[in-house]
């Protein structure tokens, strides 16, 4: 079985028992009062899978070159490794992107800008952290000016280890991210909205001059 066979083919609205009209859901699937949970329809699940498949194959990258790891994004984006083969495109602004690549260490000063950029991106959105620095501080372990664990401040969907990771490693990491998105498990952006207070608390602990709004729409 090839990989494409894992995803069901959708030809119009599937037959659901109890349906009277193709555009009207049956009564038992509607909201029935407090405490009730609407049943997940088969076509909803299939449609979610289809949406995830589309999303995984059209990622718009905003590469935030915070550190030395960004030097590996140039060969990745250009003719040698060429990530456009996999549906990646490069965007210039956070409003048009849905994948934020944070390449390398982040100083506390940069972290503030990263939070602003991340919150401006439209959902669904994902974050990839490149290099050891975003995982555990890397070589900037005892630096007074850099953070040591990125996922305390923004939700990170994929970490690519290495100091710094080569374009081949990045391609593998992005392929893993695409698989995760297709499986519906890359839900960092939902986690960020649900636990915003927790993230805000961590962010305010290190950013002393907090002057951002409640949320950077």
């Amino acid at each position, binding site marked *: 079985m090839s990989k494409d066979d894992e995803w069901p083919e959708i030809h119009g609205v599937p037959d659901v028992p109890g349906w009277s009209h193709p555009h009207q859901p049956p009564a038992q699937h509607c909201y029935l009062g407090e405490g009730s949970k609407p049943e997940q329809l088969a076509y909803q699940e299939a449609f979610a899978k289809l949406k995830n498949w589309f999303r995984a194959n059209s990622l718009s990258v905003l590469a935030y070159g915070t550190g030395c790891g960004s030097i590996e994004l140039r060969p990745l984006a250009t003719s040698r490794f060429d990530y456009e083969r996999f549906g990646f495109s490069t965007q210039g602004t956070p409003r048009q992107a849905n994948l934020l690549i944070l390449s390398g260490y982040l100083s506390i000063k940069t972290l503030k800008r990263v939070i602003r950029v991340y919150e401006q991106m439209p959902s669904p959105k994902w974050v990839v952290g490149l290099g050891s620095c975003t995982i555990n501080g890397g070589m900037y372990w005892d630096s007074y000016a850099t953070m*040591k664990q990125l996922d305390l401040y923004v939700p990170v969907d994929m970490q690519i280890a290495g100091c710094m990771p080569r374009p081949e490693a990045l391609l593998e990491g992005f392929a893993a991210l695409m698989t995760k998105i297709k499986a519906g498990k890359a839900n960092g952006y939902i986690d960020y909205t649900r636990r915003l207070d927790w993230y805000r608390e961590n962010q305010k602990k290190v950013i002393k001059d907090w002057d951002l709004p409640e949320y950077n729409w």
Partner: protein
Amino acid sequence: MTMKAFVEELSARFEVLWTHAQRDDLFQFGVPAVQAVPLLSYLKAHTPFIQLTHYTVVDWIEDGEFQMTYLLTDPVGRRALMICARIDRETAEADSLYKLWPQAVTYEHEMNEMFGIHFPGSPRMGLDFCLEKWTNTPPMRRDFDTVAFVKEMIPERPGREFITTRDYIGQKVGEKRLLHDD
């Protein structure tokens, strides 16, 4: 004229505390802090040493002093003069060079943030340079405890082990080989 003779000629005008010939084309000498700026303006006006190549400060915490270091270059003769002047560590105040070399403002701005040295009259004193709203001891001073600051302020991911390069290579190739190399 050799560099040594040049500095001896200077000592008729200024008080030269010590001299040291580091290389043929690099000569160091110390002057009192009050004479540093008059000396530099004299050098710029009347000698070939017209270019401010480097401008920095060294923390001599044991002596309770900061050493201001000015490196002047003669671009034609390819020689350099290093002038050192000690200032008190408590007051940490030095004369500004921004009227002699406008680019000195950036150096002074950085020294003000990283070492907490005040340059009266320099335009950007007290403004942020690299850090934002830093309230602790200036981070490049030697009495700033970086490790304690980091442990207190910046959370870390547990589980990271510290291993020295020597131990790591020792594990990889065996202690025998390492001792043999010594």
